[in-house]
């Protein structure tokens, strides 16, 4: 490997002979930095749409079946006289989940930061294949366009929940959204998976082959470890979802019976025989559960890096952090059945999955305590990115702890598919991953755009978001424990739940306030591109290699030779140095020892 890196490092004229037109620079770019920005902006747009949908269905829950101007303006025929239709409620819930999980937190998060940071932090000119990288982005873009186009289908978009369990998703007569809407959903996801696989393969190959001289695996920043392992999980599990989607397409369009059997609907018996929806659930969750780690691991990597840099302290337990990433990745592939405790599968399997699921709490606990110890006796710089990182640890703990209840099959019986589940996964993977993404944007914005984001707007954004996130999801645990099922268009047919209605109103109000304050972030993000203060080369005084590149982007990243690496990435406040950070490319002093980390 080192010989390869050497030859690569000496190509210092790389990138000078390309003529760049507007199209090759901004649209069909093969430069990882531009592709990263494309991912970020596409992801942000999808995120805004996803949040808007959640505000609409939250309004419906709080003020059920009342005319609403927003519905009338945005939903058209689905909100006659401003009253939301029950079908579109389920569609909004479904598309909100799909967009947030896949388009924002998978592609938006991994796509942005893996692309930006892998070459810059390992010391490479670009990804192993710039061309595949470009194809990966444009497939993602295409899948996003198809997903959004499904919103305009006559019979409505997919509405069977983001888990699209058949038979509901397979039979157009069961639900309007299971016709053309579901077809587009499946096509969009198939393309999305292709995009994700191309991206992941690229990340894996790049990390393995293109590290600069001296960048051994134990000198990699934790961000790179997280992206690397995330890519491996993606390659292992996404193809299984693709197979599930293909089999579902076969059932829907070509008369096979993989997932369907013995169905009587709208007065007729269908021909399907011998299949089982439980098979689909297995295939879906074999991706679906690793998927939550695909979402959270990059955020963990980003937070580890930002916490060390802003605490001016090495990350505590570097090797334990890597080991826990690997342990989480391994366990993530053998716990999917905890989504299926009451699916009708053999109860013995329930016992096995309870056991493996609760094991995940151990590496997660190690990570949480290591983060807390990282800030202990630090010299904490309260930059916006740092606030979001602390917020990440806070919501990760709050949300993660209730996993002990949901992962326990006996307890899951009573809270399965209630609001308790919604509260749990939104805090532990939704809000946490989103915080990781915000932290990453605030931290690497100077690297991406050469300008700084406004810190005071950042502070307002963080504190309001932090309060609203708890305001929305904390009370949800309690209405879940009271037995309120998720995905109900209205609860007014159940007087039993009347006393929970005021909680739902409170939740919705917090959600609306939280969503409105995201406008501050959007404004800060877009305005700073043009009016932000010019960034210096290393504004946060970090040690990693991306801050050794010039502020103005070059195709090929470094104007001269690629720097060599002599130390691990966390030499902050190391005794014996005058400054409180020693970049990775600074050789060891005479007599200085590299820490046996």
């Amino acid at each position, binding site marked *: 490997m080192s010989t390869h890196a050497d030859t690569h490092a000496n190509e210092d004229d790389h990138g000078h002979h390309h003529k760049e037109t507007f199209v090759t620079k901004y649209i069909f770019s093969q430069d990882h930095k531009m592709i990263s920005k494309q991912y970020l902006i596409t992801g942000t747009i999808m995120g805004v749409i996803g949040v808007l949908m959640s505000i609409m269905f939250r309004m419906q829950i709080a003020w059920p079946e009342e005319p609403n101007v927003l519905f009338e303006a945005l939903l058209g025929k689905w909100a006659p006289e401003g009253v939301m239709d029950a079908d579109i409620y389920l569609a909004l819930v479904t598309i909100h989940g799909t967009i947030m999980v896949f388009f924002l937190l998978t592609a938006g998060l991994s796509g942005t930061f893996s692309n930006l940071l892998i070459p810059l932090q390992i010391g490479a000119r670009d990804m192993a294949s710039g061309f595949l990288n470009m194809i990966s982005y444009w497939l993602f873009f295409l899948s996003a366009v198809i997903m959004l186009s499904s919103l305009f289908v006559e019979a409505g978009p997919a509405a069977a929940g983001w888990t699209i369990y058949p038979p509901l998703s397979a039979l157009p007569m069961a639900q309007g959204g299971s016709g053309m809407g579901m077809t587009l959903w499946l096509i969009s996801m198939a393309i999305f998976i292709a995009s994700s696989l191309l991206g992941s393969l690229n990340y894996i190959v790049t990390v393995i082959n293109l590290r600069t001289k001296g960048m051994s695996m134990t000198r990699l920043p934790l961000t790179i470890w997280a992206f690397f392992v995330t890519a491996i999980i993606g390659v292992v599990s996404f193809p299984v979802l693709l197979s599930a989607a293909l089999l579902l397409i076969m059932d829907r369009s070509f008369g096979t019976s993989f997932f*369907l059997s013995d169905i009587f609907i709208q*007065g007729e018996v269908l021909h399907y025989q011998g299949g089982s*929806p439980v098979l689909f659930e297995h295939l879906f969750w074999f991706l679906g559960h690793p998927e939550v780690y695909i979402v959270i691991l990059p955020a963990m990597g980003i937070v580890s890096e930002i916490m060390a840099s802003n605490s001016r302290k090495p990350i505590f337990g570097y090797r334990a952090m890597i080991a826990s990433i690997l342990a989480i990745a391994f366990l993530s592939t053998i716990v999917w059945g905890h989504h299926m405790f009451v*699916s009708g599968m053999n109860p013995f399997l329930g016992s096995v999955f309870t056991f493996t699921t609760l094991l995940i709490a151990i590496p997660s606990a190690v990570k949480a305590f290591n983060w807390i110890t990282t800030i202990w006796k630090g010299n*904490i710089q309260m930059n916006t990115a740092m606030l979001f990182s602390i917020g990440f640890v806070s919501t990760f703990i709050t949300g993660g702890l209730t996993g002990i209840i949901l992962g326990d099959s006996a307890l899951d019986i009573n809270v399965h598919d209630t609001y308790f589940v919604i509260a749990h996964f939104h805090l532990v993977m939704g809000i946490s991953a989103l915080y990781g993404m915000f932290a990453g944007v605030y931290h690497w914005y100077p690297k991406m755009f050469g300008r*700084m984001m406004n810190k005071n707007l950042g502070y307002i954004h963080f504190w309001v978001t932090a309060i609203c996130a708890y305001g929305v999801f904390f009370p949800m645990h309690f209405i879940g424990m009271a037995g309120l099922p998720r995905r109900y268009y209205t609860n007014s047919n159940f007087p039993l739940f*009347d006393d929970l209605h005021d909680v739902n109103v409170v939740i919705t109000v917090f959600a609306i306030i939280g969503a409105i304050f995201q406008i501050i972030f959007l*404004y800060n993000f877009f305005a700073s591109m043009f009016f932000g203060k010019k960034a210096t080369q290393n504004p946060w005084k970090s040690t990693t290699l991306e801050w050794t590149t010039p502020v103005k982007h070059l195709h090929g990243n470094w104007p001269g030779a690629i720097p060599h690496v002599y130390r691990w990435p966390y030499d902050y*406040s190391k005794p014996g140095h005058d400054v409180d950070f020693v970049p990775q490319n600074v050789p060891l002093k005479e007599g200085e020892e590299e820490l046996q980390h």
Partner: protein
Amino acid sequence: MTAFLTIIIVLFVAVAIWQMVKIFDLAQVGVSDNQVATDNDNKINAYLMLAFLAFIYIITIVCFVKWGDLPLMSNAASEHGAEIDNLMIISMIVIFIVQTITQYLLHYFAFKYRGEKGKKALFYADNNTLEAIWTIIPVIVLAGLIIYGLFTWTSIMNVSEEDDPLIIELYAQQFNWKARYGGNDNTLGKANVRLINLDNANILGLDESDPNAQDDIIVSEVHLPVGKPVLFKIRSQDVLHSAYMPHFRAQMNCVPGMITQFGFTPTITTADMRQTPEMLDKVANINRIRVEKSKELAAKGEPALDPYEFDYLLLCNKICGKSHYNMQMNIIVETQEEYDAWIKEQKEFKNSLIN
């Protein structure tokens, strides 16, 4: 009207953005030009961290006090429900302790070790003893929870036919529940959706020639004798549903093409449950809310809401289509005598057919 409101909203957004531009400009004045946190920023945000810690504690206390002791939490109406509640309470206590301590450490450290010019952080990269401690403690705690959980799970799911449970079929369809009793022989007749014959009122697809099916009883309200084990055999005719009976801590999906099952023993009759102090409070509270709501409805000229009376419920808890939100059936738990009297009045399958 809509257009007018839309214009107003657009105007508001425009004003909001303009205001934020002003904030943005003001924020630039007198700030060091690089937008990196200063000592003053560190101090303000450090105090906000403490305030946020207080916020987390307050919201926790408020939630527990206001909504933490719902009758649903403490009044399990089935034998195994008490075990689940016990395990739930133990898990909640563990979670509560860990949450309180870790959130304190996180936010307090963020406050205490805020950055100041000239201060140097402690170079502290590793400590195997510490890491071993916080690996081993979770291992021990989780081992306890896992073992307790697995014993509970196994005892719930292993329904023994030796207890001679009452066999009842729960039958789900979009968007409605039916139940079928085995009749005098307590044996359900064979059934498949392919045998459904609506013209002959054979709505659940029973095999009309099966002797066991003749005395089956199909109803749209479940009655259970108190203290007697019941085993639900669960079917669906169209899509996935989930039979959720929150008061009995019971839930099982209804899967087309296969029969799933869940068994429990109800312990409190509906009549007794209505008289528990918690339930009296809860129902009184709900009725207060409904009276308020009725006043609002009356102002709009709509009919008032009926007063609420408690009943055990079977809800659908797996997304199943448009009217998923209104798929429910009452469950009545009563004494054996009341049950016997009720079942005697129901029509047997062979008498319910048209031909």
